[in-house]
């Protein structure tokens, strides 16, 4: 596992972080490296260089690309929006939120719905609006969960009924997609009539995003089942990244996850940073909920 000093050492000259050693900078590992530095003793110069890189890579539409050479804003915008606006810059954060508010899964677009109606396949309830990984594609659990967390952070700073509504619909999207076993798959809970398996990463992310349900006074009976599923997943988890998301998600509901009883290796910057964030959550500081 990379400790925080090692993560700092892997920062690229341009200020961003790569997914793996000696590679180019990407938005996702840069955000996670900055979040990890915020819960441990970070290096102020490294942090400032990281934020400078992020600010420079924001696109004119307000979103962020996965890396600067990709000419498209994507779901990683929601990750950037989790960073403190005081450090990122309030205007940068506000533009990110505006971009996120304009995104929805293609399955909820008017054109797609109309097309389904025309071919006689438009029955059933209107799908709830979640977020896609990439514009023009369907909504999925992971980007929806992270977008909800980003909007929650924004809502705490400035009240917006539109933001609150998207958060609520997004949470319903997640609840709709809970698997039979109580956890979350990356997508639907069944495909072609066959129940889908749930995964640690997405179960942890969904639980994080559903944290506000109890606080908002509308506790869902599904949450108890989800917590039990997440605890079971944590016990048999085979991935440090998956376990970290489970620990973060369970901690958001006041539950300390027990791992599989063996050390799971962290091999790269991403899983190492997530381990640091999960450990901080177990100590009581869950950065995704601040």
């Amino acid at each position, binding site marked *: 596992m990379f400790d925080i000093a090692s993560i700092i050492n892997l920062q690229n000259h341009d200020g961003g972080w790569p*997914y*793996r050693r000696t*590679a*180019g900078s*990407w938005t*996702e590992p840069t955000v996670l490296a900055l979040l990890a530095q915020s819960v441990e003793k970070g290096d102020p110069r490294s942090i400032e260089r990281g934020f400078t890189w992020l600010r420079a890579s924001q696109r004119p539409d307000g979103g962020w690309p*996965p*890396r600067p*050479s*990709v*000419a*498209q804003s*994507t*779901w990683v915008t929601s990750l950037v929006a989790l960073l403190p606006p005081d450090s990122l810059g309030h205007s940068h954060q506000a533009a990110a939120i505006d971009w996120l508010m304009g995104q929805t899964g*293609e399955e909820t677009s008017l054109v797609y719905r109309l*097309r389904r109606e025309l*071919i006689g396949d438009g029955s059933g309830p209107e799908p709830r609006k979640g977020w*896609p*990984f*990439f514009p*023009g*594609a*369907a909504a*999925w659990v*992971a*980007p929806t969960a992270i977008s909800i967390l980003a909007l929650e952070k924004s809502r705490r700073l400035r009240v917006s009924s539109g933001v609150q509504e998207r958060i609520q619909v997004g949470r319903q999207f997640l609840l709709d997609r809970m698997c039979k076993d109580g956890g979350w798959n*990356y*997508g639907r809970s069944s*495909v*072609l009539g*066959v129940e889908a398996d749930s*995964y640690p*990463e997405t179960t942890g992310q969904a639980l994080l995003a559903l944290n506000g349900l109890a606080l908002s006074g509308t506790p869902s009976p599904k949450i108890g089942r989800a917590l039990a599923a997440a605890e079971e997943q944590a016990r048999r988890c*085979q*991935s*440090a*990244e*998956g376990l970290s998301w489970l620990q973060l998600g369970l901690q958001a509901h006041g539950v300390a996850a027990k791992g599989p009883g063996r050390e*799971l*290796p962290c*091999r*790269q910057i991403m*899983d190492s940073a997530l381990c640091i964030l999960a450990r901080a959550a177990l100590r009581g500081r869950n950065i995704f909920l601040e």
Partner: protein
Amino acid sequence: MNEGITGRMTRRQALMASAGCLALTRCSLVGSRLPEPRVSIVRAAYNQSLYETVRRLLVDHRVDVKGKRVVVKPNLVEFDPGTTINTHPMLVHASLEAFRALGAADVRIAEGPGHRRVTMDLADAAGYFETIPRFDELFTDLNLDDVSQVLLKDPFSRLNSVYFPNTALGADLLVSLPKMKTHHWVGATLSMKNFFGLVPGGVYGWPKNVLHWAGIDECIADFHAAFPRHFAIVDGVVGMEGNGPIQGNPKPVGVVVAGTDMTAVDATCCRIMRINPAGIRYLRLAAGPNRLREEDIRQIGEHIKSVETPFNLIPEFQNLRI
């Protein structure tokens, strides 16, 4: 989802039917030089003999990799301690050793799983670390590799360009090492569908759903054309039938199928699985109308009849049964 594409494809197919030369441009560069694609079917098991089997396959097909960069791309999908979902690590190692023995300057293993992003943990659970010495040094996670934008020439799909990993783009030979499986969206997943793993999740997400909206079959055909320097070695020792590519059941077949022309390799695998290759849309798109016939593919080694093993199909694909 694909109704907007259908009209476009119909026009394209009509164009292809009227211009045979266009069909040739859709085949692999190497394959198009051959009057008749050659496909090997060899009996195999997951034991030490697999190493010699793969080496002989490459020699039989006169695969010239001396001084070249080879990227071996297995199908790594899900945590599975058994042999059903992922390409067996022994076949991956055997391929690595065989290409090295033939003088390749560099052989890397690379994969970008489609829906789980914890690639190294998947590889660990699948036995890759245990079977392949220095696996972590040899492996590139294509989901997280640096990327370059590639314009698709005359694409079948809605995509005009795709970001591909630099490791794959830099390969002199890209070796598809899939598992022989049924697939609940496209019928069968073999060497061509395996190239979906070249698309970086770091750009498109997990899953790479953009490809579904652009047309799955069409994207498979596009990627086949985008990486013309390829070779296929299909793990059919134990395949998967039923609700593949993840939730199906193990299907022992006991073969490895290999060749330079991926459409011919996949068509042959389909016949072994008792699936009509002409019913697989991406094969029709990539191969053109007249390149999937059994009589147009020269089989080496075992006869299809001697190894054919009917794979159970989900109800949606019963019409593919031979």
